[in-house]
């Protein structure tokens, strides 16, 4: 059909300036693209492109510097928060963030993650949890769900053999250095709006030197999960959210839920 041409049009949404024109290398439907874009939108809106340094370690998003038009460092697997610490300690007036996947942040880099947060480094840690290793071809992640079939758990993740999914976000929220901890998603327009608000708060807190802000983004991996993008969104809601519920986990001025004391 012919769609009539409208007059008097105003742009109400366009790609952020701080995102380069390089098309993403990510698979169709991958949440990385949305997360990148929203992060750059926040940097645009806060006008901090010149003051922001990002760190992206090994994983699908290691090439984030192709897309984010800011000064960036690529870090070794698991060491993004250590590199970000190094940057922030010599440039304390700048905004520094790391952008890490689940394997990076919650497996090989667990020590760096915990100690960076425990020191209360004034950085933002963005944690993309898609419960799988995307770049290496769909192996089990520390956050893979029980029973989840991956290329290294061909019979499903067996917690008796390999342990339960690691809820690292709840874990680090216990640390005094963590100032703002939240879990968001990018699968619906509303989820994206909430994520953007949280990212904005995180940068504002960083300006105030409040401690580590940590935002988990429950995302998808259609290729690794062997689902279509639309099926993967459904899978997130049905399988990921029961294990990784969305919302604030630690917010300034409010007490977090105390750990269970049943066994004490």
């Amino acid at each position: 059909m012919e769609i009539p041409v409208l007059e008097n049009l105003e742009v109400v949404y366009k790609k952020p300036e701080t995102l380069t024109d390089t098309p993403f290398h990510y698979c169709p439907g991958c949440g990385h693209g949305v997360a990148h874009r929203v992060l750059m939108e926040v940097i645009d809106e806060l006008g901090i492109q010149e003051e922001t340094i990002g760190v992206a370690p090994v994983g699908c998003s290691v090439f984030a510097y192709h897309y984010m038009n800011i000064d960036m460092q690529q870090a070794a697997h698991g060491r993004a928060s250590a590199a970000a610490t190094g940057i922030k300690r010599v440039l304390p007036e700048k905004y520094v963030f790391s952008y890490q996947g689940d394997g990076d942040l919650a497996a090989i880099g667990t020590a760096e993650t915990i100690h960076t947060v425990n020191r209360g480094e004034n950085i933002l840690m963005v944690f993309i949890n898609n419960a799988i290793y995307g770049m290496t071809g769909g192996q089990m992640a520390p956050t893979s769900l029980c029973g989840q079939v991956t290329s290294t758990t061909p019979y499903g993740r067996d917690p008796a053999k390999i342990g339960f999914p690691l809820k690292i976000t709840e874990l680090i929220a216990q640390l005094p250095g963590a100032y703002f901890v939240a879990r968001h998603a990018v699968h619906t327009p509303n989820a994206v709006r909430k994520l953007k608000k949280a990212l904005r708060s995180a940068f504002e807190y960083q300006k105030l030197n409040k401690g580590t802000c940590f935002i988990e983004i429950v995302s998808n991996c259609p290729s690794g999960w062997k689902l279509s993008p639309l099926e993967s969104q459904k899978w997130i809601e049905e399988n990921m959210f029961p294990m990784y519920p969305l919302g604030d986990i630690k917010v300034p001025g409010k007490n977090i839920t105390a750990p269970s004391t049943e066994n004490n």
Partner: protein
Amino acid sequence: MIRGTVFIASDICKGCELCIAACPQHSLSLSRQINPKGYKYAELINDECTGCINCALVCPDAAITVYRQAKVKKAV
């Protein structure tokens, strides 16, 4: 009714269909043609678009620009 429209960069769209599912007006669909990357791409199929930006928010390839018709200012 608020009227809007979208521009979808068909050359970078990967046809993931997330925008199609996010559109409350059912105004988007996959093309019959394929783009140079070999993907079918999302395109506007009717004039029901309100410029709500939902499609752009979930687009993983930052391929969508959204426009809305400006309100006609009343003469003072």
